[in-house]
C-alpha cells in the first residue's frame, strides 16, 4: 500500500467536495473543486485507489502545496 498526498496547486478556498472518505477513485476522478482568483480549480485523483482521508472541508482556506486528501493504492 502506498499513500499519495494530493496537494493544492493554488492559494484559495474549498468550494465543493465531490467524494467522501472510503470512496474508490479512478485516476483523473474529480475529488473536489477549489476557488481561486474567481476560477474553479478541479482537484483530480493523480492515481487510482481509495480516498482514505479528507483533510479539508468546504469553505476552508488552502495554501499552495497544502495536503488536501490522501489516497491509498
Amino acid at each position: 500500500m502506498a499513500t499519495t498526498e494530493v496537494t493544492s496547486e493554488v492559494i484559495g478556498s474549498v468550494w465543493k467536495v465531490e467524494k467522501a472518505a472510503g470512496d474508490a477513485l479512478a485516476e483523473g476522478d474529480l475529488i473536489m473543486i477549489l476557488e481561486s482568483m474567481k476560477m474553479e480549480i478541479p482537484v483530480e485523483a493523480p492515481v487510482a485507489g481509495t480516498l482514505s482521508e479528507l483533510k479539508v472541508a468546504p469553505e476552508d482556506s488552502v495554501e499552495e502545496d497544502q495536503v488536501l486528501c490522501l489516497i491509498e493504492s
Partner: protein
Amino acid sequence: MSFDDMLKDLKAREAKARAMGGPERLARREAQGVLNARSRIEAFIDPGSWVETGLLAVSSIVPEDRGKTPADGKVAGFAKVDGRMVAIASNDFTVKGASSSATNMKKVGHVKRVATERGFPLVFFGESSGARMPDNMGAKGMGTNLGHDPQQYVRTRQTPWASAVLGQCYGSSAWYTCLADFVVMRKGAILAVASPGLASFAIGQKVEAEDLGGWKLHSDISGLIDRVADTDEEALDEIRRFLSYMPSHCNEPPPRASIPAGSDEGAQRIPDILPESRKRAYDVRKIIGCLADLDSFLEFKPRFGRTAVTGLARLGGRSVGFIASNPMGKAGALDVAGCEKATRFTVLCDSFNIPLILLVDTPGFVIGIEGEKQKAPGKIINFMQALQMCTVPKLSVIMRKSYGQAYLNMGGGRNSDDVAIWPTAEVSFMDAHYATEIVSWNQQVPEERKQEIRAAMEKDSSAYGLAEIYAVQAVIAPAETRRYLIQQLEIHEMRPSGGVGEHRMAAWPTTF
C-alpha cells in the same frame, strides 16, 4: 627500459588513473547507491564509444599531489550518445573532491572548445567542492590558476549544453550548471555558491545543506533546474532524452523522429478536457499531451512558475517547444516566475532552430505589490522582447482567454507567424467590469451611467471578431488543432536557410 617494459609502464599508469580515489572511497559511494565519475559515463554513453582525453593528467601545482590526483579529479572525453558525438566532463569527487585546479581546468577547457568548434553537445556531470586548496591560495595561486580563459564563462549557445547536478556543486560546477540549457538534479545533491560549512563559518549562518541548495529549493523557488531525478541513472536518462530533441549544433535543424502510432488520436479528446464553463480551470498539460506526438512531451521546470508550462515535444516528428498558459495556476495569469521561465525557454528554442507553439488561456499578468517588488514590468518586457527577436517559426493557438498585454506576449497579432483561435476564445483588453471601474475611478459616477459605460465596454470579444479583420488566420475546432499545427510547421519551415534561424539571442543570459 625495453619496449615491453615501456608498454607495461604505460598500462600501469593508465590502471592507476582509472582507479580514481581508490577502492575504499569508491565502495563507500556504491554502498550509497551513487555512481562514480566513470560509471556515470559508462551508464550514459553508447557502449564502447568512450575516447578519453587527459587520462594521465595530474596535479601540477602541489608536487606531493602528483601521485594522489588520478586524472586530476575531472574525467574528460568524447563519446557517442544514441549514435551522435558528445563531449563529457565528469567530476570525480573521490579525488580531492573534484576540486578545480590548473591541470583539470585545462582538460575541461579542451572538451568545451572541441565541442564548440566541431559542433556537438557538451555534458557536465557536476559534483565538485569548488576551487582546490591550497593550489588557489595567495596571489601566486590566484595568478597561476585563474583568469587565463577570457571566454571561460561566455555562453553563446553554439552547441547544446546539459548538466546533471549529482552531488555537491559549488564553484565552477555551479557556474557551468547555471550556463547549461538543461539541468537535471538528483535528490540529495546540492547546488550553491559555497558549501554550508563556509556559509556557517564565514557569515555565522547555520544552514542545512538542503535549505541552502537542495532540489526543492531549485525546483520550486529558484527555478535553476529543469528536472528532478531520484537516482543518478534517472538523471542520465533525462539528459539523453533532452539531447534527442536537439540539433548537434546551432547551424543545423533538429533531428526528425518517426511518429509513434496512435499520435493522431489524442486531439479528439480535447473537447472533453476543455471545460464548458469559462470559470472552470483545467491542466493545460493534458491539452499538450493530446497535441504532441504520443508521449513526446518533456516538461521543463514543472514546479517553478506554474502559471506557464514550457517543454520540448515532437509534432509530426519535428522538435517543437511549447509555451502554454496554465489556468490551474493563478487562473493562467502570467507571473514573474512564469515570465522568466518562458523567456529562458524562448531563447533556448530560438538558439537551436526549434519552432515555438504558444497555447493561450490567460486573463493577463498577475498584478499587485508582490510582483512589482520582483520587477514584474522588466520580466514581462524581457519575455516580450525575446518573442519579438525570435526568428524560428512561432505558431499561436488562442484556446480561451487572451487579455491585454498578455495577448501580445503569448503571440497575438504579428507576434506569431500564424495565429489560430478556437470558437471558445474571448479576446479583449480587459474584463468589461474592470474597465468600467477604471474609467470611473475616483469620480462620482451614478450607477445608470456606469451601466452605459459597461455596455460600451462589452464589445464583441469573440473569435470571429478577430477572424473578420484577419487578426487571426483561422478559427479551428480544438480536435483539428494537431493537424493544423503540423501543416503550419511544414508551411513555415525555414527553407532559405536550411532550417536555421538567426540566433539573435544566442548570448542572452541563461537566467533572468
